[in-house]
């Protein structure tokens, strides 16, 4: 089959797409640090966060760390990425899905005392959807496997 004009156009389109893809990849790589929606507690502790301005911090709420203030609005809790933790203070209404042990994203600033004062708290949920009974069964199975693992250590 002879090399026709339409084959040339297919090749040109392919090359064009590859070049645009490459350009997009380079741009996204260059802006890698600006593409994150939130920083992790480890990054906050290491000081890899913007100084002076506000930013978002994301992680899990440490179980048992949630304390409510006397005014009924202010709350304090601890966010962890399982490596480092950051204490958070917030005054306002928490989203319904906010729970200890669940994901959360808070917007605010770190004070001199190392406490993150949040102006907005958002709940981050995962992509697991199941009926309550299944969730209960899963939890029980996990607890069982843990009790089996611990004596072996």
């Amino acid at each position, binding site marked *: 089959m002879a090399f026709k004009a*339409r084959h040339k*156009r*297919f090749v040109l*389109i392919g090359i*064009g*797409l590859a070049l*645009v*893809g490459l350009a*997009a990849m380079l741009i*996204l790589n260059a802006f890698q640090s600006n*593409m*994150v*929606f*939130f920083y*992790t507690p480890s990054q906050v502790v290491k000081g890899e966060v913007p100084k002076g301005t506000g930013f978002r911090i*994301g992680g899990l709420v440490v179980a048992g760390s949630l304390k409510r203030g006397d005014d009924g609005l202010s709350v304090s809790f601890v966010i962890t990425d399982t490596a480092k933790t950051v204490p958070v203070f917030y005054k306002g209404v*928490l*989203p*319904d*899905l*906010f729970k200890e042990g669940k994901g959360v*994203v808070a917007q605010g600033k770190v004070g001199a005392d190392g406490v993150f004062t949040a102006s*907005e*708290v*958002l*709940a*981050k*949920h*995962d*992509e*697991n*959807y*199941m*009926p*309550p009974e*299944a*969730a*209960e069964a899963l939890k029980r199975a996990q607890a069982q496997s843990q009790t089996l693992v611990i004596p072996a250590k």
Partner: protein
Amino acid sequence: MKINWFKYSSPQVFYPLAGKLIPWFAWLAAILALVGLYVSFMLAPTDFQQGEAYRIIFVHVPAAWMSMVIYIVMAAWAALGLALNARLSAMMAQALAPTGAIFTLLALVTGSLWGKPMWGAWWVWDARLTSELILLFLYLGFIALQSSIDDPRRADRAGALLALVGVVNVPIIYFSVKWWNTLHQGSSINMGAAPKMAATMLLGMLLMALAFWMYTVAVALMRVRCIMLERERNTDWVKELSLKTLSSQSIAGAK
């Protein structure tokens, strides 16, 4: 048996074929949507975290999938039109764009309605939401560019270039929740991994996705038939067709 596919690239041949196909896809869409809605709202269990509010997923995720799939199909038709200089390919790309834009808008609106009660915000500028918004602008840009150029062949070429450049955005949308940390949760279904969803919920979502898919084919065929008539209005086959329609109408009127 060898089918001559190029035969169907002629609008004159494709016009009646599309007319015959439309009812099939439309009925399939209606039946799948009814079954899908029944599974989604009657059979699927309540979620352990989000209660009943999670049920918007049955519209949100299929709409978001279709917004990306339609864009890829549209760009593929545009590329074929560009390379082969085939009229019908460009018309198919043009016919798909409005449906793609509608599904993108639907995904954004349902996502917003879901985000407020669950996350606590209507909108956040994370990578997933922002790239999906850019997809809407790409669709609108494609439609606007095509309709702003009077010469259809030049409009096709300009639109095809825009569609092809914009195609890089689709993998960015899809992988955004993997590449960067976002407020949006990860993909509901991953290749090679067991879905993290109860089976009935998954069934409802897939049925709705299939229904949206069939709907897309049906309306794209309807739209492409209109585009064919409009663009080919000076050709003999369209003139014959309109004469035939007129005479059958006048017979029906006389009766």
